[in-house]
C-alpha cells in the first residue's frame, strides 16, 4: 500500500471503494470491523496517511485537498461506527434475552400482610363522611352513670323504655346503690357529655363500643355504634333528612331512604330510617324479607327534656340526633353472615377484609 501520493479525488474515490467493499464483506464480525478501523483510521491507516500527506502539497492545493480528505474520512468513519454500534446493540439485545425470570412466582413480601378490622375501616369511612359535613369527633367513657346513659336522656326510672336496651350493670365499688353504674347501652351519653361541656351550637359524631346483655346469632354483648348530634337554631326534620340522605348516599351510593315514625325517649319526634336494600336495590330479597328496605338507623329531633338536662335553651335551639350500628354496616358492606366473626379474632377472617 503505497498511497503516500497526493490525496487526489481519484485516489480518495479508490480508497472509498475499497473501504465499502471491505465493510460489506466484514458483516457483523467485530474482529474484522476492528481490523478495518485500524487499517483506515489507525495511526498507520490509509486515510491517516493521506491526511498527513496534505502537508506536502503546494500551499494553494492544500486547502481543497485537506477538506476533501477530511470529508471522506468522516463519512467513512461514520459508516463504520454505525455498523459497530449496531453490532454492539444486537449483541447486547441477545444477551438481555437470556435467563427470563418466572414472574408468575409470588412476589416477595418482607413484611406479612396486616389489616384494619372491618369495624375500623367502616368507622373511619363514616367519620370522614361526617367530617365533610362539619362534624367533630367526640368520645366518652364506656362505663357510665345511670344518669348519663338513661336519666339525662329522658328515660324515666322504672319505665319499659329501659327494656328496649338490655343493660349490663356494674357493681359500684362504694356505697352507691346497685344500678347506678352501667356499661353504656348506646353512644348517646356522649351527647350529654358533649352538650354539657360545649353547649350549643354543637355538631358532633361519637363512635364507640357499646354493651347489651344478650348474645345470639344476631346480637353480640358488645358492638359498635356511631352517634350524631346537631343542635343549632332552626334545625328541622328536613335537615335531619338531608344529612342522613347525604350520609347514606356517600356510604352506599345513591339509593332510597325512608323515614318511619318510631320511639326513643331522647327524641321527639323519633324516627327509624330505612335504606333501600343494598342486595336487591329495592326489588325484594331474602335479606330484606321481601320488603325492599332495610332498617339502618334510629334518629329524631332532640327531646326538649334532653336539651334542658344539658342546660340548653330548648325554645331557642332545636337539633337532631341519630345512632347506627357500625358492625351491621360492615356486615352489609362485605356480606359477612355472622356477627360473631367480628369479635373472634380469627386470622382467616381478619385477613380477608382488605383493600377497596
Amino acid at each position, binding site marked *: 500500500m503505497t498511497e503516500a501520493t497526493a490525496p487526489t479525488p481519484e485516489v480518495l474515490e479508490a480508497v472509498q471503494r475499497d473501504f465499502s467493499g471491505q465493510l460489506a464483506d466484514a458483516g457483523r464480525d467485530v474482529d474484522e470491523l476492528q481490523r478495518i478501523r485500524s487499517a483506515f483510521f489507525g495511526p498507520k491507516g490509509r486515510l491517516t496517511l493521506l491526511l498527513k500527506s496534505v502537508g506536502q502539497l503546494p500551499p494553494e492545493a492544500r486547502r481543497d485537498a485537506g477538506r476533501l480528505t477530511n470529508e471522506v474520512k468522516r463519512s467513512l468513519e461514520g459508516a463504520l461506527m454505525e455498523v459497530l454500534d449496531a453490532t454492539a446493540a444486537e449483541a447486547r439485545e441477545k444477551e438481555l434475552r437470556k435467563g427470563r425470570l418466572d414472574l408468575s412466582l409470588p412476589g*416477595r*413480601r*418482607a*413484611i*406479612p400482610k*396486616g389489616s*384494619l*378490622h372491618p369495624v*375500623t375501616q367502616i368507622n373511619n369511612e363514616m367519620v370522614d363522611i361526617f367530617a365533610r*359535613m*362539619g362534624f*367533630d*369527633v*367526640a368520645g366518652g*367513657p*364506656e*362505663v357510665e352513670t345511670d344518669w348519663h346513659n338513661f336519666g339525662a336522656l329522658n328515660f324515666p*326510672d*322504672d*319505665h*319499659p323504655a329501659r327494656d328496649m336496651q338490655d343493660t*349490663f*350493670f*356494674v*357493681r359500684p*365499688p*362504694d356505697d352507691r346503690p*346497685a*344500678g347506678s353504674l352501667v*356499661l353504656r347501652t348506646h353512644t348517646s351519653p356522649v351527647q350529654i357529655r358533649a352538650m354539657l361541656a*360545649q353547649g350549643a*351550637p354543637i355538631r358532633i359524631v361519637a363512635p364507640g*363500643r357499646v354493651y347489651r346483655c344478650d348474645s345470639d346469632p344476631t346480637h353480640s*354483648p*358488645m358492638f359498635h355504634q356511631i352517634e350524631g348530634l346537631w343542635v343549632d337554631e*332552626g334545625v328541622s*326534620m*328536613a*335537615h335531619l*333528612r*338531608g*344529612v342522613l340522605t*347525604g350520609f347514606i348516599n356517600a356510604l352506599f351510593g345513591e339509593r332510597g*331512604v325512608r*323515614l*318511619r*315514625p318510631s320511639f326513643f325517649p331522647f327524641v*321527639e*319526634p*323519633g*324516627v*327509624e330510617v330505612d335504606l333501600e336494600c343494598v342486595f336487591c336495590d329495592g326489588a325484594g330479597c331474602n335479606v330484606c324479607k321481601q320488603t325492599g328496605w332495610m332498617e339502618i338507623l334510629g334518629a329524631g329531633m332532640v*327531646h*326538649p327534656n334532653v336539651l334542658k338536662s344539658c342546660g340548653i335553651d330548648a325554645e331557642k335551639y*332545636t337539633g337532631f340526633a341519630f345512632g347506627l350500628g357500625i358492625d351491621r354496616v360492615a356486615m352489609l358492606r362485605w356480606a359477612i353472615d355472622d356477627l360473631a366473626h367480628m*369479635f373472634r*379474632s*380469627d*386470622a382467616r377472617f*381478619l385477613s380477608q377484609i382488605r383493600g377497596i
Partner: protein
Amino acid sequence: MKASLKWIKEILPSLKAAPAAIEKRFNAVGLEVEAVERQAEPLDGVIVGEVKKLAPHPDADKLRVAAVFDGEKTHQVVCGAPNVKEGQRVAFAPAGLTLANGVTLEQRKIRGVESSGMICSEAELGISDEHEGILVTKPRARAGTALSKVEALDDVVLELGVTPNRPDVLSHFGLARELSAMFGLERPKASVRVRESGGDAKTHAKVSIDDKRCEKFTGRVLLGVKVGPSPTWVKRRLKQLGIRSISNVVDATNIALMELGHPLHAYDLHKVAGQKLVARAAKDGEKVTLLDGSVKTLVADDLVIADDSGPVGLAGVMGGLDSEVTDATVDILLEAAVFDPKSVRQSARRHGLHTEASHRFERGVDTEMVETALDRCAQLIVELAGGQVLKGRLVDTKGKRKPIVAPIRPERASMLIGRPFDKKEVKAALTALGLRAVKNPAAAKGKKKAKKKDLYADALFFEVPSWRLDLSLEEDLIEEVGRLYGYDNIPAIMPPGRREPFTEAPKRLAERDVREILAHEGYGECISLAFDAEHDAEAMGLDLAQAVTLANPLGEESRVMRMSLVPALLRAARLNQDNLPSVTDLALFEVGKTFAWAKPAGELPKEALRIGLLLRGNRAPVSWTEKGTPVDAFDLKGSIEAVLEHYRVEGVRWLAHEVAWLHPRSATRIDHDGRTLGLFGELHPAVAEKYGLEGAPAFVAQLELDAIVKVAGARARFVPLPKLPPAQRDLSFFVSEDVAADTVLATIRGAAGPQLERVELFDVYVGKGVPEGQKSLAVALVFRAPDRTLTDSEVDGAQKTIIAALEGELSARVRAG
C-alpha cells in the same frame, strides 16, 4: 302484638283498604309490620271433601274407611275420628300435600287398607287447638272448593312492633282507632250494653282500694255460668294471636283483653274468702301461689289483690291459683282495675314475670276503658258460658284524672318538621286522632300571669284523650301532626354551614394513626369482647380489688371488664393455633380500653387506652423466597419503635423488669422519665401453658397509648442538608456481656462532643475469638462539622476521647479503630 285484620274490620267496618295498603300505612305511622301471616296460605290445597260412604276398617275397631269425593273423583281414606259421618262435608287434604305442621301426606296402607290423603282436624290444619275431631264444614259446601274460602279462613295477621310509648294500640280496638285517623274514617266507639238480671252485685261481693297505687278497682258478679270449652270461632281467634284456649270463661277475658286492651281477671266467687277483694300493699314475707304454679314470697313494695285470708294475686301481673276458675266454677267475680305502671313493673321484675297484663299496665292503660272492658267481658262470658250478670258494678276509685292540655304553635311545628303547617291542618290532624281543641287554660284562669312574655299566647290548645298517655308536650303534638302528614313527604335539605369553631381531637386521631401504623407493620387488627374472667386478671398479676365487676354477667368467663388487653390476645392465639395447626405465624393487635377502679374509687373507673400486640411464628410466611425465620423479641421491639417514632418520643429507656406474664429473659419496661409507656417481651411459659399455647413462643406487648401521646415529641423540623463531606471511622471492641448496648452508645455520644453526627452499632458477636463473658461490638462513627471540613487530627482526637471513655467507664478493650 299480633293483630287480625278481620277483627279490626269488624270494629271499623268502614275500613275497606286492602291488607297491603293497611300494612303500608301501619309502617308509615310508626307501627312497624314485622311479619305478615296470611292464614289461607298454609291451607293451600286443602279442599272440601264429601264423605260418600263410611265402612268399618276390617282390622281396627277405632278406624273407619271413608270414600271421600273431591268433586272429580273419590279417594279411599282411613280415618280415626269419632265424629266422621256419611254425607258430611269435611276438610280434605289429598295425598302429596304438605300440611302447615310440615307433614307431607303420602299414599300408604294403614293396617292393611290403602289410604290416600287425610281428613283433617283444626289442629292439624293449624287453625285452632281443636284436635278432638275432624273439621266439619257447611253441609251444602260444594266438594272440591278451597276450604279457606268456604270457612272464610282468609284473614291476614300482622305482627306489629309497638314501641313502649304506645300502649293505646295494644288492642284491636286501639288499632282500629288509629287506622280511622290514618284513613280519615269516623272513629269507632267502644260501647257495650250488658244485659243485667237478678239481684244487686253489691250484696254478693265487695271490692275496695287500700293503696294509692291502685287508681280504680271495678268488678262484676256473674252467677250460674257453665265452664267448658270455647266455641270454634273463639278457639280460632285465639290461635291466630298465639294464645292458648283454656276455657270459655278464661278465653272470654283474653278476647276482651285483645279487643279492648284492658287486662281482666275472673275469680271463682266462692274461693274468694269473704267474697271481698282489696288492693293493698303486701306484707313482707307473705306468700302467694300464682296461676303458673309458682310460689312467690312477697315484699312490702308489692301491690297485691287480697281476700280475707291473704293475697290472691300479684296486682297487674298474675292471678292466684287458689281462686282460679275451674270446671267446677259456677259463680264468678270479674275484676278490671288500674294499677300504677311503676309498681307493676317493679313487681313483675322482682318476681321474674312478664305477662300480657303486666306488659300493658307497665305501659299504662286507658282509665276510661275499665268499665267498658269489664262489661264487654261479662257480656262475652254469658254469651259463651251462659249464666247471668248481676245488676250494677262494684267500684272503688281514687278520683278522676284531670285531662292533660297541651299547646301547639303551627309556626313551631312548621319549623321543627321543616314544612309549613297552618292552624287548619294542625287542628284537622289532631282532631282526627281524638284530641279536642280547647281554650288556652292560662287565659281562662285570668290574665294576671302575663308578666313574662307568653310564648304560647297565640298557640292552639288541645285536650289529650285518656288513651294517649304519651302526649303532654308541644313536641308530642308536633310529632302527631308530622306522623299523620307522613315523614316521607318531608323534604331533604342540607342544613346551613357550621357556625361553631373547629377543634382538633388529638387522642381520637392517635387511635386512628396507631392502627394504621400497626397494620402497615404487618399486624392484623382484632377487636375482642371487653370481658374477662377473674382468673385472667390473676394470670396478668393484677389486683382484683380494682376490677370493674358486672352485676349481671353473661357467664363466669365474662364477669369482669378487662384489666389488660393481653388475655384476649392469648385466647386469639390459641384459637388461631387450633384453626391452623401447622402454621402458628400470627401478628395481631388491638387498640382499646382497659378498666380499673382507682384507689380510692372515683365517680367512674379509670379507662386506659392501650395497644396490645402479639407476635408468633415466622417473620414472614414460608415461601419460595423466605425460608422461615422465627420472630424474636427484637421483631416486636421494632414494631414498638415504629409507634414511638411516629410520636417522635425521645429519651426512651428499655429496662429489664419483673412482669408476671413475661419471660424473665426478656421482660422489659419501656420507660420515659419514670413513666411507663409499655411492657413487652416473650410470653412467660407458665402463662403460655395456661392459655394452651404450644410450640412457637409468643411475644407480647401492652403499650399505654394515653401515655405515649402525652410524651410525644415536637413536630419534625427541617434541617438544611449538609454541604460538607463527613468523616467516618469504625471501631470494634470487647466489652462485658452485662453492659447494655444503649449504655455503650450513650457513653460514646457523651464522650464524642458535637462533631459526632451519628453512631451506628453494626455488629454484635459472641463466640469464637471473644473472651469468656465478653461480647464484641462494632460501631460506625460519623463526624461532621456544619461549617468546615474536619481535619484528620480533629477526627483522630475525637476518636481517642471515645476510646478512652469506653475503656475507662466500661472497661472495654478496643480491638481495632
